[in-house]
């Protein structure tokens, strides 16, 4: 079952990353990037690396999103 979950999560991450790249509104793009980070957390946990999973969870959910949203606040919304 581990292999199937890994495969499914990878497919999801690639789809979400492509959606994040081709999205027209930048705020949607940032939210999809958070989805990539969430999938990364699941994969790191499955790969028996709990330290890295904790780091990615903290960084991806908190600081990373904040940095991109601050950039959007200054640079404007539209791509």
């Amino acid at each position: 079952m581990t292999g199937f979950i890994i495969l499914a999560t990878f497919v999801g991450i690639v789809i979400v990353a492509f959606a994040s790249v081709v999205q027209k509104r930048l705020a949607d793009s940032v939210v999809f990037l958070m989805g990539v980070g969430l999938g990364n957390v699941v994969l790191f946990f499955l790969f028996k690396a709990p330290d890295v999973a904790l780091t990615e969870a903290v960084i991806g959910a908190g600081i990373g999103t904040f940095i991109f949203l601050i950039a959007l606040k200054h640079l404007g919304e539209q791509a």
Partner: protein
Amino acid sequence: MNIKRDIPTATLSGFALSAVLVLTLITILLQYLPLSQQRVGDALLVLNEKEGVANVVTTVVVYFRGFDTLGEIAVLFIASLGVGLMLQPNTECRLKAESNFMLQTASTLLFPLILLFGIYVMVYGHLSPGGGFQGGVIIASGVLLLLISHKNFEVPHTVIVAFETVAGVSYVLIGFMGLLLLDTFLGNFIPHDIANMGMLLSGGVIPLIYIIVGIKVGSEMSGIVQNLMQRSDDV
């Protein structure tokens, strides 16, 4: 967006062709992957039984590659310094509107818990998943919560400078004390009993260094967040 209109067909087909080529090459290479290969960390895993703590990743980050970690927090310091130098801060209030009453109360209530969790992750980094890097970023997230909910909240600049200076200097001092006492930089000079590995005070110098790394990462990340938040809207 319209993919067909925005991107030329030649670009798309070039991308697809190169992706297919690389994927085919890697699939062919993976057919000959040796299964019982010698791993990089085997020697360090064995060495961890003689001198180390329960979390092997912590031992590798702080003890076996401690000098490397010193360089990495130096990179982090330079990034924080660059953010502070680039952005023009504004000492007046940045947020135009006062945030919600419930948000203010809840964030005041939650901040000590977040701080406590960050300190827990930092202090128990040698026994359970976690450590200085994660704990520092958790503390910075708590500071971020207060920054976006309170209009006039600000971590004083001198506090950030003091924490960061003390942490950086004590990292180097501990390294030189190991060099003085045991002839290795960052040597484990505090007596540590390997028999009770898994207790809180069993790691010697390793938890101490990870707490120092946590303080440094926390103050640097708080500085980055605060500088980004305080960028003035005019100019």
